[in-house]
C-alpha cells in the first residue's frame, strides 16, 4: 500500500456522493447558510431550535459531522501508516503514532455515535453530498503540519460544532443529541490538546517549523470558517467555544486569532452573498 493516499480515492459505498471543491465553492447562487439565512447576512443565523428550519439544519449539520468523523478516522489512520517511526523531521515519533491510533478508536466511536444519531434524527446515511476537504488537510506530508491542521484546526472546529449542537439539544430538550454531543466533545478536547502538545514538543527547537505549522492552521481555520460558518457573533451559525478551547490548550491570543479569521471569512461571505 502506498504512502500518502489521495483524497479522491477515499473508499465509500454506493450511498455516498463526493463533491469536488469546485462544485462546493463555485455555486453561482452563492454560499448556503446553515440555519436558513443567507451567509454573512446581518441577522441571527445561530443554529438554535427556535428557527423554523432548525431541525432540518441540525440534521444536515449532523450528517456533515458524520462524514467529517469518517474522514478524521481516515486521516488519523493514515498518520499511523504514512510516516516511518522515528524522531527525524519526516518521521513520526512512536508516541505520536500511539496517539493517532487512539484517535482512530475515538473517531470510529464518533462515527458509530453519528450513525445512531442519524437514525434518531431521521437522516439516511449518504443523504447529503460529501466533500473531502477535511481529509485533504490530513494529507500534508509534514507530520507537524498535518497534526496542526487536523488536531488544532479541524478538531478545534469540532469543539465549536459539538458545543453548538449540545446547546441545541439542551434547548430543544433532545436528551439523545445532548448526551451524544457531550461525550464527543470530551474526546475532541483531548484530540486538540494532543495537537497542541505535539506542536510544542516537535517544534521546541525549530521556530520556523512552528511558524509554518501555525500558518497552515490559519489557512485551514479560514477554509473551515467559509461562509461565516463559525464565529463569535449571532451572525455565525456555529459559536466559537472559548472555554473548551482553553481546556484543549489554546491560549487567549490563539483563540482571538481564530475569531479574527472567522470575522474575515464572515465579511468575505457577506461580499459574496449576492448571487453572481
Amino acid at each position, binding site marked *: *500500500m*502506498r504512502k500518502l*493516499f489521495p483524497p479522491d*480515492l*477515499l*473508499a*465509500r*459505498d454506493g450511498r455516498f456522493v463526493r463533491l469536488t471543491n469546485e462544485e462546493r465553492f463555485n455555486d453561482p447562487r452563492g454560499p448556503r447558510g446553515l440555519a436558513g439565512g443567507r451567509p454573512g447576512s446581518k441577522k441571527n443565523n445561530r443554529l438554535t431550535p427556535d428557527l423554523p428550519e432548525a431541525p432540518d439544519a441540525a440534521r444536515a449539520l449532523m450528517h456533515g459531522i458524520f462524514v467529517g468523523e*469518517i474522514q478524521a*478516522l*481516515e486521516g*488519523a*489512520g*493514515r*498518520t*499511523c*501508516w*504514512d510516516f516511518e*517511526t522515528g524522531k527525524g523531521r519526516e518521521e513520526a515519533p*512512536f508516541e505520536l*503514532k*500511539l496517539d*493517532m*491510533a*487512539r484517535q*482512530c*478508536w475515538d*473517531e*470510529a*466511536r464518533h*462515527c*458509530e455515535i453519528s450513525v445512531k444519531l442519524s437514525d434518531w434524527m431521521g437522516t439516511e*446515511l449518504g443523504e447529503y453530498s460529501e466533500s473531502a476537504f477535511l*481529509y485533504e488537510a490530513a494529507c500534508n506530508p509534514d507530520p507537524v503540519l498535518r497534526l496542526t491542521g487536523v488536531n488544532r484546526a479541524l478538531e478545534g472546529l469540532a469543539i465549536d460544532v459539538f458545543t453548538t449542537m449540545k446547546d441545541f439539544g439542551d434547548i430543544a430538550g433532545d436528551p439523545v443529541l445532548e448526551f451524544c454531543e457531550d461525550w464527543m466533545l470530551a474526546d475532541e478536547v483531548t484530540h486538540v490538546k494532543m495537537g497542541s502538545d505535539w506542536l510544542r514538543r516537535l517544534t521546541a527547537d525549530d521556530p520556523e517549523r512552528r511558524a509554518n505549522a501555525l500558518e497552515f492552521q490559519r489557512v485551514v481555520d479560514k477554509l473551515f470558517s467559509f461562509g461565516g460558518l463559525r464565529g463569535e457573533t449571532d451572525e455565525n451559525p456555529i459559536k466559537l467555544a472559548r472555554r473548551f478551547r482553553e481546556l484543549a490548550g489554546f491560549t487567549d491570543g490563539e483563540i482571538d486569532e481564530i475569531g479574527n479569521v472567522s470575522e474575515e471569512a464572515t465579511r468575505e461571505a457577506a461580499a459574496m452573498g449576492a448571487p453572481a
Partner: protein
Amino acid sequence: MADPKKPRPAFAPWDTRELPGSFTVEETAARVGNYKWIEMKLFEVLGGWIATVPELDVKLRLGTHCYHHAWHAELFHKRLPELREMNPERLTLPANDELVAFVDAMTEPEGPGETIEKLVGVYRVLIPHKIAAYTFHLNNTSTITDAPTIRTLKLVLQDEFEDWRDGEMMIQSLIETPDEVDRAAAHQAKLEKLMLSAGGIAGPGSIGNPYALQEATA
C-alpha cells in the same frame, strides 16, 4: 479468624506457581521486542487501510482494532526497560527477514475491492500466529519471575481473541461466492507460506519445538 500470629506459607495451597521458566531475561526481552515490532506493523497498516476500505462497518472496526494493537505495542514497549533494555528501539525488531517479507506481502493490498485480502492477511494468518506465540510464551515463562509479562500477555490475548472473532465474522460476511472463497484461500496460503519461512512472529521456536526431545535423543 485464626490466630494472626500463626505462620502461613508464602504460597497458599492453591497457588502452584513455579520458579523455573523457559526463557532467560535476554530471551524474554528479544521476544518482547519482536512482539512490539509486529504489533506496530499491524496497527500501522490497519490505520492505513481505513481510508481504502469502502465497507462502512469494516472501516470502523479497523479503527477500533488499530488502537488495540497500538496499545499492545505500548505495553511491550514499556516492558522492555524492565527487561534490562534501556533503549527499547534497539530490540524493536522483526524476528528475521522472512517476517519482513511476510509483512510486506500482508500490507500490499490497497484497492477498494481487496477487503477480503486485507482481512484474511490479518485475521486468518497474522493474528492466529500471534495468539499461538503469545500463548506459548504465557505457558512457558516463569509464573513468578516473569509475572509482569504474563499479565501483559493475558491482556493482549483477550483483545486478540476478540479481534480474531470480529475479523473472522467480517470475512465470512464478505465472502459470497465460490470464487471469493478461492481468493481468500489463495491469499491465506500465500501468506502462510511466508509465515512458515519466518517460523512465526518471533522466528523459529515461536511456539516451541514439539520434536525437540526426539532431536536431542537422535
